């Protein structure tokens, strides 16, 4: 029956209460992933790039060598759009972490975080003359802000008057004219909606014509015309006065994702999924030219006009910055474009005017593939340049860069015959490794200390570590409430111990916390708290709410504060004599061990002991005495005499039972082991 359809992977977008952290370098100088937006500050000749790696970077376009200036890192998901306001002094950014942040662009400090949206914020629009900003996104609402009041926000004065419009479709594009008289939104409704921002409630008109999502919009200065780029591959020119489409430009072979128009609204620059940047004369749409060809789909264009009124600097000519899904972005000259416009192009054969960009801001490769190794402590990754690297989850850092080697082979090479339960999830959306810890399984992985390379410090041989516990301890190492802090004589907390592991200080940690929703409809609303590992102890920094205490979920607090050891996983199994031995099964009950980490040799000892009891009943006392004195010896003797089998395969004595279950038993039911006496 077709009425039931498997949703497959679709459901994973749902948020959970979880603790996540990002494994990264302290300073991520270069973009790791695609660049969603670019803004140019003509005053300082700086460039702002909004990366999918969650970082906004500022670049000096005049720099000869290393253009990197600094980063603004407070988002932890894709930054989807940025606008530069107040003549370059303030920057507003919109991110998939559902927030909008206001930055002091010159200093790079975050002034305010606005949680006005409930879903990814996809786009921003800025009216320069009115210093007004609008944001919209997948939660189908458009929100207007007054930039002046946004900038005035402080930690204490955290409210601002905003107005918003509720839409019916996810909004992917937004545009305003400089005077803020017209706001246009493009959505998956495949239509444009035009609003008057001064009266933000009513929709002035709806312009239909596109057959797919509207991904890019530009409004002319006077607000009478509008250009739209759509996933249907067309660019349409609309007359807002006439409320109709005046022209349809078919210059691209695929979706149009980015548009820029010059100040006079005579030339439109467009880019999209077909990786090409076209310049088209709006007065004569037949006249167009292929500016350049990128290597990845184009996400955003930023036009720099040398002769614009605002910037009339000698030496600055028209050029265009092109951001793609690739981590590097380039600047292309537009010098000869006007002269080269002509009408007769065949898209297949046309050659771009420029093949070399003026400037390139390089990016780093992004991790695009990962494999969690068997020990569940290490991850092998491959990036877009095919470099393979080995990471340690427990230490939240790179272990080894393996260079350009075969990924699959490296995985095979590192295969260990051990089974550890799954205890974390990996996410690559930033191009970096993000690890998510979730209550449901974070404490399910146990390993013996030896396996982790710890020499038994004391007590018994088989100290076991819970990986989730150890990692949480490490992540919250600087949190004064951790059990390793003790009050000293002066009443101050002092670190008296340190966790077994440590993670780099700069590790970025995000806590997602579900709370009963105040809106009622969704059941639960999620809030998040982001901090850097070393800041866990700081109480009063701006943007860091004082009490991390409020954020650490109970399940994490238990191990961090109370040093409570999670429960081990019980395992039940059946032990039978191998049919070939001819021994009658002595009992048919299931045996239960408190931890599935129990090694096969322990079971062998048990069997051996049992057999000897059975056969040499008379010497019972002797044996037990022996056994107690020399446990080591006893086990080695046992291993010589008895062997265990599972599914007819002889088991290695050092293997643990969960590994046996996973690699040999391979069934969901209780494990069944057979023993037999080794004959010599």
């Amino acid at each position: 029956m077709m009425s039931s359809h498997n949703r497959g992977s679709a459901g994973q977008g749902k948020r959970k209460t979880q603790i996540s952290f990002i494994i990264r370098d302290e300073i991520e100088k270069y973009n790791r992933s695609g660049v969603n937006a670019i803004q140019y500050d003509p005053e300082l000749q700086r460039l702002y790039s909004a990366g999918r790696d969650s970082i906004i970077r500022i670049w000096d376009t005049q720099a000869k060598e290393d253009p990197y200036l600094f980063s603004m890192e407070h988002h932890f998901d894709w930054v989807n759009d940025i606008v530069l306001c107040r003549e370059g002094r303030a920057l507003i950014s919109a991110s998939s972490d559902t927030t909008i942040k206001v930055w002091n662009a010159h200093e790079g400090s975050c002034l305010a975080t606005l949680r006005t949206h409930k879903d990814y914020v996809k786009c921003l629009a800025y009216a320069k003359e009115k210093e007004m900003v609008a944001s919209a996104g997948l939660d189908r609402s458009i929100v207007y802000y007054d930039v002046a009041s946004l900038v005035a926000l402080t930690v204490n004065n955290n409210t601002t008057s905003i107005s918003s419009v509720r839409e019916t479709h996810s909004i992917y594009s937004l545009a305003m004219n400089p005077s803020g008289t017209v706001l246009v939104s493009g959505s998956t409704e495949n239509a444009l909606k035009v609003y008057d921002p001064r009266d933000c409630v009513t929709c002035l008109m709806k312009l239909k014509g596109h057959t797919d999502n509207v991904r890019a919009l530009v409004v002319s200065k006077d607000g009478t015309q509008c250009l739209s780029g759509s996933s249907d591959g067309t660019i349409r020119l609309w007359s807002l006065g006439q409320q109709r489409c005046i022209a349809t430009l078919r210059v691209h072979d695929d979706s149009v994702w980015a548009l820029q128009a010059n100040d006079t609204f005579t030339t439109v620059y467009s880019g999209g999924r077909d990786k090409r940047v076209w310049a088209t004369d709006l007065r004569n749409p037949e006249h167009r030219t292929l500016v350049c060809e990128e290597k990845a789909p184009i996400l955003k264009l930023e036009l720099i006009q040398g002769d614009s009124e605002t910037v009339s600097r000698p030496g600055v000519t028209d050029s265009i910055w092109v951001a793609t899904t690739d981590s590097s972005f380039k600047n292309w000259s537009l010098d000869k474009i006007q002269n080269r416009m002509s009408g007769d192009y065949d898209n297949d054969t046309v050659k771009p005017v420029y093949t070399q960009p003026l400037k390139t801001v390089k990016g780093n490769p992004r991790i695009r593939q990962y494999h969690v190794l068997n020990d569940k402590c290490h991850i092998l990754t491959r990036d877009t340049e095919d470099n393979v690297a080995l990471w340690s989850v427990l230490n939240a850092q790179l272990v080894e860069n393996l260079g350009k080697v075969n990924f699959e082979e490296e995985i095979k090479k590192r295969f260990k015959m051990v089974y550890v339960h799954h205890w974390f999830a990996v996410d690559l959306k930033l191009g970096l490794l993000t690890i998510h810890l979730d209550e449901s399984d974070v404490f399910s992985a146990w390993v013996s200390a030896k396996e982790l390379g710890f020499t038994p410090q004391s007590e018994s041989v088989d100290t076991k570590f819970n990986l989730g516990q150890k990692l949480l301890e490490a992540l919250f190492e600087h949190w004064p409430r951790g059990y390793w802090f003790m009050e000293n004589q002066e009443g101050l907390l002092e670190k008296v111990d340190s966790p077994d592991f440590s993670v780099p200080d700069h590790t970025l940690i995000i806590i997602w916390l579900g709370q009963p929703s105040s809106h009622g409809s969704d059941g639960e609303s999620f809030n998040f708290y982001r901090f850097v590992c070393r800041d866990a102890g700081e109480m009063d920094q701006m943007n860091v709410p004082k009490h991390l205490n409020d954020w650490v979920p109970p399940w994490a607090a238990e191990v961090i504060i109370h040093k409570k050891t999670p429960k081990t996983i019980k395992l039940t199994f059946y032990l039978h004599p191998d049919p070939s031995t001819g021994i009658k099964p002595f009992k048919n009950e299931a045996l239960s061990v408190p931890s599935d980490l129990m090694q096969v040799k322990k079971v062998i000892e048990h069997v051996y002991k049992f057999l000897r009891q059975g056969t040499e009943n008379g010497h019972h006392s002797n044996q037990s005495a022996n056994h107690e004195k020399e446990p080591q010896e006893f086990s080695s003797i046992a291993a010589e005499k008895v062997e265990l089998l599972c599914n007819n395969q002889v088991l290695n004595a050092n293997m643990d039972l969960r590994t046996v279950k996973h690699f040999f038993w391979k069934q969901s039911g209780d494990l069944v082991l057979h023993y037999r006496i080794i004959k010599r």
Partner: protein
Amino acid sequence: MVIADAESPGPVKKRPRLSLKVQKNNESKEAKIEKEATSPVLENGQEVSDGEKEGRLSEPKEEDDSKSVVPAAASLENLGNTCFLNSVLQVLRYTPGFLPGLELLYQEIVQVEKLRKQDVLLKEDAAVFEPLESNKSIHLVKDLYRLYKNMEQREENHEELATSDVMSMAVKPQKLLNIIRELNPMFEGYLQHDAQELLRCVLSYLQDSEKDLFSVKKNVSEKMPKSETPKNVIMERFLSRCAKVKPENQPQNVFHQPDILDQIEQSEAAKTSITHSTTPVEADTACLAQKEVLKSENDSNNKQRTRTPRGKKANEEPKSNQKSKQAGRQNLTRSKKACDETDGTTASETVECNGGRKKARTCLSKASESQTEEKMETGCGDGKTVNGKLSCEEDKKEKSGKQQTILGMFQNQKTGKRLGMSRTVLRNSTMKSSASCQAADVSVNGDCGNEQRQKGEKEDVVKCKSAPSVASSMNESPTKSQSSPKQPVVKLEKCDRVCNSPLKSVSAKLATQKLSPYKSDISPSKGSSGEAKQKLDFNVIPKNKSSNNITLTATKTNFIEDLFLGKMMLRTKCCECENCRERIEDFHDISVPVRVERTEECEEEEKDEDSDSCLRKLMFAFTEVERLRDDNKYFCDTCLSHVEAERSLHYQGLPNILTLHLKRFSTSSGLFGYVSKINDHVSIPLSLPCLRYKCPSPCSRPDHRYLLYAIITHAGVTLTSGHYLSYVHVPQTTGSGSPRHFLSTPTQQFPGHWLECDDETVRVHDEPSFLSMLQGEDGSLMGTPYVLFYHRNTPVSKWSAR
């Protein structure tokens, strides 16, 4: 189906046990029927044929006088709230391509069982034999087949059986019900059940049986040495039944006239050679042989001229025709008919040729000597041989299942050839009139052509469109000289044969071939020896059977899938990177929500679409884009992130039978735990436009359209109560009519009419009145439409090529 709570027959859940029958409308309907005179009972059952449509039309009127007699369409008895079963059975019966598929399956089962018995006997390996016997789904096939057979017989014997009592034409589906209950205990008890669910079950069981049978066949064929022993065994069994058991090589005994027999032998030998090697050259030789035979026979003067040229033609034509397979046969038949007509033979003959019906037989018997029949029967293991020509098909059906199996075996082209040859021979000998000669020749040519075509392609069913030209050419050249050739040509174009599987097609061929000789006989029947010829044909057949077995074991039938299976494409498009993921899924039916949730999104679209049929709107609502957003975002492999996505369904492969299930029952709209029915009116179009996403809209291809052929309606308030009945459309018979070797429906009696099957009662509506019922919102249709059945606007014969 939304809910299946009928399964739990706990005391709490007991629902009224009786089906609610809406009786009030009956009278008016009957009155309507009378007025429209749409329920014809044939006075002379024998005489009805496509050719006689006019006659038929008039007949119903005569019937009006005796309105007390129920229409000649078999009904099904209600065995205690089994109207859900009855309605489904009736619909299936009228589903194009279903009966032939079923019969074929049945024949195969019978055959395989025999083979296995043989196997067991030979190897004393009883274990192997068990599963098939105990396989319930195979039992289901058998019972279903027998039921339809039973219904058919009732219809055939309508004259004797029909009274004013509706029960006179009713069949008890008791056995079938039992087996269904065994298969799925859900249907036990006397509660009302969901017809849609039953339909799904039945179809899946049929599919199971096909699979099982296939695996069994594989087994058997693997076990059996490919040598002919087993086949021969079967053959022998068949033959042994007949009083005169003659190996294939000894057909002569059958014939009355020794001379003729000899000749036949020769021709057969030639043919056999052909059969073994399929190259056209050999066929030519065969033809030559035929010619020779003909020449030698030169009893009649006229014949010679015509024959020789024809023979040549035959050689040439076959090659050209090879592409079009069976069509040729049909042509032959028609041409024969035409010839007959020209000869002045009676219309009844034509009829026989077309449908090969029982009536025809009777005619034959009259025309031809009774002796012939008897001889034929005895001579050949298959009763078919008898009148040979027309009745073969019918006989098979009517007679024991074994014979049917044989039919299946006959599928080989070779048989056809031989038959044709023999016919020609016969004709030659017997023919005294020039006209008859022509007919014979034509048929010969056609046969040759057919055979060769068959060799070339084993494809199942052929429409005769291409073929007619050939046939006509054949007819014309020889015929012109003698009598009006135009008629045959015209008739040829009409012919459509419905055959789904290769096997069927073969049998169809056989049937036609048989028919053709018959005709020739008829004309000569005036003369003496026509009978003998006919007998000849059948002697050859056994050999073919054996060879058929091999092919049978190798093929796998899957007629349920062929008929009902469609494909959908599930496409997920990431809204970020706009990459698409596509997954193709099978579907058997489409559940159509009766109430579309009106979202803001579709408001506007609805406005523009008022002209469109409501159902269509509903169907497209089903394929509307689903957006994965909010908490249900899609993880895109390219973006490595959760993004919004559009998920859409597209119809990719269109099923031949489109089953639309209106979701009238839902828990959501009713009280807690109570299944309520949505009685909203849904206007049902008689045809649906193309659904395929790849086709431009509007799609210009007529074969992508769907035509309504059946509806199951439900009257009542809940799923577990109320009453089901079905409306089925009796196909318009095409000019030539379909060959009658398969299970049949009363096509001849009510072409283009709609039957209202209400358990024991069957009422007949003509198309316009049905349409008005369908459109009327006042409920002139009994119950509300629940399951709709559309078939593709193409001849069934083309369906196999999905």
